[in-house]
């Protein structure tokens, strides 16, 4: 290579060992390790819950699924150690029947009781699904309406800036504060008591910032030409938005709802004062008047995990319930989110631009 006096630092293009090269290589390694750390954490969480919870939910023999766990209400578990050395495990109802049939055996046995360790978590699944559906309906209606107003109608000014500031601040409020807010406003001041309705509104307000921000982005992403095209044909502003803007923004709005669903289903703090019962005998549809439906508390999966994991004495039996509930919980959230994703995929196919 010809020497170039004007570029004294020029040297062979062959690689030469240097501290700079070693420094770059180790930096690259650090970045890579940090990234794989996420993978490791996810793997540990999901494998742990999947393994321990899967053993509770799935069975080796037909029907391969622990049906009572998914279809029954939680019960206390009674463990009877009979004098002959045999151990009997039974749920509450079974135990009472057994007690009537063989009182002498029960009397002779050493019996232990573990709350919530028998039966299943069906009411909790139902409660969580109800909470998610109701909260999402409220959050989407309020959120999409305000997103439409902010992106299509509002003129930038101090008031709109204040609204945006409030949305940003609302997103940063800890969920327990939403719980207290819901308790103070809906449960106490409005007198709704601990109820589905109070839980719905509390959860809805918690995810409003996510929905509003993402919906506004989705609306803004719709090309200006589509609005102008409709307006130039003589559509009113609202007709334009309804027929030629909102449908194309829906996939984006649904993306935000997937995130919101995960939060609504998962948060324990907002519902512990507003909607969740530790235990309840009736199922949500067992109400006298239809209006009572909205004013009943429900059992919910995250709150159930909290209760069985921290409010009762721990042992192997309660641990099974904890992991089984966590497993079902993850599965339920994934199922709800998946349906939103499928709906989005269908809409995307329908309107491609």
């Amino acid at each position, binding site marked *: 290579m010809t020497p170039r006096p004007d570029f004294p630092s020029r040297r062979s293009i062959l690689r030469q060992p240097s501290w700079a090269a070693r420094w770059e290589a180790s930096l690259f390694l650090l970045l890579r390790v940090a990234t794989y750390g996420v993978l490791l954490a996810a793997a540990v969480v999901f494998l742990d819950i999947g393994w321990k919870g899967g053993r509770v939910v799935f069975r080796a023999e037909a029907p391969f699924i622990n049906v009572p766990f998914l279809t029954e209400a939680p019960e206390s578990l009674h463990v009877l150690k009979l004098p002959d050395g045999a151990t009997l495990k039974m749920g509450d109802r079974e135990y009472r029947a057994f007690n009537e049939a063989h009182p002498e055996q029960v009397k002779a046995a050493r019996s232990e009781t573990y709350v919530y360790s028998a039966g299943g978590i069906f009411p909790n699944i139902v409660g969580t699904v109800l909470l998610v559906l109701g909260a999402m309906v409220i959050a989407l209606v309020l959120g999409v309406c305000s997103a439409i107003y902010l992106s299509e109608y509002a003129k930038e000014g101090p008031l709109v800036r204040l609204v945006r500031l409030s949305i940003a601040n609302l997103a940063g409020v800890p969920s327990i504060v939403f719980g207290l807010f819901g308790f103070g406003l809906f449960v106490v001041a409005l007198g709704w008591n601990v109820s589905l309705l109070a839980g719905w509104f509390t959860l809805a307000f918690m995810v409003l910032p996510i929905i509003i921000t993402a919906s506004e982005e989705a609306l803004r992403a719709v090309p200006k030409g589509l609005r102008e095209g409709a*307006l130039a044909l003589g559509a009113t502003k609202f007709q334009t938005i309804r027929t030629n803007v909102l449908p194309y923004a829906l996939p984006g709005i649904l993306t935000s709802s997937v995130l919101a669903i995960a939060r609504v289903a998962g948060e324990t703090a907002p519902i512990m004062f507003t909607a969740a019962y530790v235990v309840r005998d009736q199922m949500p549809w067992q109400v006298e008047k239809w209006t009572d439906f909205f004013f009943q508390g429900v059992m919910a999966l995250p709150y159930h995990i909290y209760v069985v994991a921290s409010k009762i004495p721990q042992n192997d039996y309660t641990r099974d319930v904890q992991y089984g509930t966590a497993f079902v919980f993850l599965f339920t959230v994934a199922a709800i989110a998946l349906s939103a994703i499928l709906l989005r995929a269908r809409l995307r196919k329908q309107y491609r631009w």
Partner: protein
Amino acid sequence: MSTAQPLPAAPAVSPKAAPAPATPPIVEIEKLDFFYGDKQALFDVTLGIPEKQVTAFIGPSGCGKTTLLRCLNRMNDLVDVARIGGGEIRIDGINIYDPRVDVIELRKRVGMVFQKSNPFPKSIYENIAYGLRLHGIKHKDKLDEIVEKSLRGAALWDEVKDRLHDSGMGLSGGQQQRLCIARAIAVEPDVILMDEPCSALDPIATAKVEELIHELKTRYTIVIVTHNMQQAARVSDQTAFFYLGKLIEFAGTQKIFMNPSNPQTESYVSGHFG
């Protein structure tokens, strides 16, 4: 844009009225001043657009020709800071900036085709039916009939008749633009505004659209904004030359291109600037 010679300053007053057009004007613009915020975009524009003819607006970028076009169907209402400073625009003798004017009805009478073709992400059929439904036409047979008529009118029918229910986004650029023209003529406007309709098209697609414009002028009044002077010379009957927000010259196209009265017009059409 290269400047071959120093630009002469725009004259302080706009030229006197344009030569008498072949047909009476349907759109009359009188002493129009237009502002974006504090910035004046149009100065004292007076212009009569004759019925069932093609009128071209030409001029360098930023001369206000698109602004004026978008005033004619009040599309500028969408811009927050846009406002009329003075003067008026009359269509059929009614000042369209009168507070009593229903903008929705105005836009049904004055259709528009945009620079960037903007078919809706719906089927070809639905693209045209959209405007018809806004006009309250719901009957299937009637819709079918007008969709076909409009597509034929836009010289697109033969190319799309077998795939009316495919997405309009799947068409080529030139077909998309003709779809937008079909969509505009489906609602039977009196005036069609075209904002550089061929700027994104190749020469063959451009030729088709120009041919179409030629056919459409038997039924509609067409106002076309164009950067392409050859295009203005080919399609228009009247040409208005704008520079720095002022109407410099408005006359028959032949006169503008062959024998302009204003030296600025002459240097622009002969390619010395712009």
